């Protein structure tokens, strides 16, 4: 796991600064050995190291969509900007998300895989993106769509650009950028006497000291993915043969593949059966149609789904042609219905087993994808293979040969000019140094899926510090009491729970129907929130 080459950086987790010299700090205000080795810090220890201390009640680490959504909820609940600092290396909260969606073939004009009411810029989820699109473009289609989905129409999903633009508007309304502080967060440690220290490394030249300590009662950790991992066989091929051109990951820039295919006909192998595979296939076929290309597509499924599948008639997911079909990345009730309540009640093994029942790679049914693949099968330029990949080796004429082991044990050699890994395997939570430090020094624990254990209010279990509480939201908390963590709506849910928990602790007032509706009117009129 320590091989940094096995992880694709997605920029949110750049580990730029080296470990401090154990002999002592070389720059003013740096971490020293005593601080690094001590789990709970006193104010004096930090002062003795010459690290300046900034006091603020709440610190959010990450500055991506998770931090944005929490800030939005708290600002609407009445929190002044001076009570929260968002420590981030991003210029805008949607930066990492936009980067990932763009390279995985969802540019701003394309649609995300997200429900109409999953709105990072609107805590109420009303009016939904469908209504706003209908309103802005003066057409009824999106409204008709949400009223009849998923029976007559595919699920409505917003365009990526619509979401980013709406977030930009709301960021200005809540004075989001007044709360951000640029830099890389190195660690969060508990403070003797309660609360936490969050150590920030500001960009070079922007601070008199190498580090700055933020002393806060509450900390919110929402740093996203540590990185995306390659399939092991593809990783082995890449490092053995030093070939980073023919074997690519869908989450890294790979435009050269599409460009090369425009220059000469080629064979492309797709690995994976999720949404990204669907998107990459659409791009390949769109290019094929638009430029009259002769691209041949070979698709390897590890598990080939032939139809509806599941353990009982009450638990059957649709599927076919290799794919498992599902509108969103979890069954819908995981965000606020039957399954959400069920997950909240389950502990330990039972919870892990239930995750297994609902888990599994899947993709939404979309009419244009169905049409494209049906055409490909009919005309013979889209072929599927089933089995486990044994190895990947160089072949003749610049090709890469994949050896696929079928269930009967036979080995099939499939040559291709390019392999696109669309599996999107996520790296271990420890790959992110901040999480590793939480496990090693702050009492954080792993949950049943090996990620960060959080409670029902998203408090990081084991990290209590006096009256202080640490919260976490986002993909690294999967495996706790809420499944849909890695989604807009999941981040909104986490924000509501954290907001309510903070209200109980007296940080803000609890939001009731009156404040909620008057604030909604202000949102609708785009009235700036008081700072």
């Amino acid at each position: 796991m320590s091989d940094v080459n096995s992880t694709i950086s997605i920029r949110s987790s750049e580990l730029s600064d080296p470990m401090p010299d154990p002999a002592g700090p070389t720059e003013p205000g740096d971490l020293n050995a005593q601080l690094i080795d001590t789990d709970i810090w006193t104010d004096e220890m930090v002062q003795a190291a010459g690290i300046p201390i900034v006091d603020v009640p709440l610190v959010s680490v990450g500055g991506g969509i998770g931090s944005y959504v929490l800030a939005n909820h708290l600002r609407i609940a009445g929190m002044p900007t001076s009570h929260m600092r968002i420590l981030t290396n991003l210029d805008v909260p949607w930066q990492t998300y936009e980067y990932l969606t763009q390279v995985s073939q969802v540019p701003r004009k394309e649609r995300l895989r997200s429900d109409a009411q999953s709105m990072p810029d609107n805590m109420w989820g009303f009016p939904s993106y469908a209504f706003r699109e209908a309103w802005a473009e003066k057409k009824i289609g999106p409204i008709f769509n949400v009223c009849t989905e998923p029976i007559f129409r595919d699920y409505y999903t917003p365009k990526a650009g619509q979401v980013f633009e709406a977030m930009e508007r709301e960021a200005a309304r809540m004075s989001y950028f007044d709360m951000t502080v640029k830099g890389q967060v190195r660690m969060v440690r508990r403070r003797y006497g309660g609360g936490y220290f969050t150590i920030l490394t500001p960009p070079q030249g922007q601070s008199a000291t190498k580090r700055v300590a933020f002393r806060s009662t509450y900390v919110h950790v929402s740093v996203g993915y540590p990185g995306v991992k390659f399939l092991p066989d593809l990783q082995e091929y890449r490092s053995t043969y030093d070939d980073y051109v023919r074997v690519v990951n869908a989450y890294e820039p790979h435009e050269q593949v599409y460009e090369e295919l425009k220059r000469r006909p080629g064979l492309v192998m797709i690995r994976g059966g999720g949404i990204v595979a669907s998107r990459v296939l659409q791009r390949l076929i769109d290019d094929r149609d638009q430029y009259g290309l002769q691209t041949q597509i070979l698709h390897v499924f590890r598990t080939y789904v032939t139809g509806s599948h599941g353990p009982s008639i009450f638990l059957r997911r649709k599927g076919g042609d290799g794919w498992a079909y599902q509108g969103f990345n979890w069954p819908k009730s995981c965000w606020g219905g039957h399954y959400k309540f069920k997950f909240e009640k389950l502990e330990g093994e039972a919870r892990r087993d239930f995750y297994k029942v609902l888990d599994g790679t899947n993709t939404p049914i979309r009419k244009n994808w169905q049409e494209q693949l049906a055409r490909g099968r009919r005309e013979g330029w889209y072929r599927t293979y089933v089995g486990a990949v044994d190895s990947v080796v160089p072949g003749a004429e610049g090709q890469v040969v994949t050896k696929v082991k079928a269930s009967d044990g036979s080995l099939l050699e499939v040559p291709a000019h390019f392999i696109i890994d669309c599996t999107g395997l996520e790296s271990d939570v420890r790959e992110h140094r901040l999480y590793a430090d939480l496990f090693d020094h702050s009492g954080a624990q792993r949950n049943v899926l090996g990620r960060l254990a959080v409670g029902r209010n998203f408090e990081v279990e084991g990290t209590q510090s006096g009256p202080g509480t640490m919260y976490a939201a986002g993909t690294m908390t999967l495996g706790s009491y809420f499944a849909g963590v890695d989604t807009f709506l999941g981040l909104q849910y986490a924000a509501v729970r954290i907001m309510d928990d903070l209200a109980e602790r007296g940080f803000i007032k609890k939001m009731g129907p009156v404040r909620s509706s008057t604030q909604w009117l202000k949102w609708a009129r785009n009235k700036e929130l008081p700072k």
Partner: protein
Amino acid sequence: MTPVLLGRIQTRLFVLGTVGLLWTIVITPFLLISTNDGLKLVFTIDSAPGFNPIAQTYKLTLAALLITAVFGCLFWEPVYHFLMQFRWEKDWPAFFHLLSVFPECLSTFLLLHVAVLNPFGDIGPDKEQYVPVLAYLFLFFSTWIITWLAANGPMKIFFVRWRFFGGRII
């Protein structure tokens, strides 16, 4: 929506008790009833000794609202909840909610004719009274659509946690 049973019941009672009730109160005097002089708006029908058309119609429309609320909670919501169990997502699309206007319109209409169930008691085959069909259809469908719209939108403005809480308000 992704309701749980208790959420279904609470949401039904809430929307019928607020916008449903308000709409019923507002629209009742303007319903079209067939009389000996042809179709007339309720408030234009002349009163007779012991017969106040507006009061009489309110009795009927409010009874319809009450029956829809109570019978819905006791019968229809458990049925929908059961049917939902066959869905992988355990969700209840807005379209299903809209379509249920048909069975519920029928069940309420029939129940209005059961004297025992009708709290206002003047209706029944033996009383030579009947429920005016056109007015009833208009009232039921319009109320249903208004409450459906409320449940699928503005509800969330007042209750931030409602959509994450299986449709439960408390």
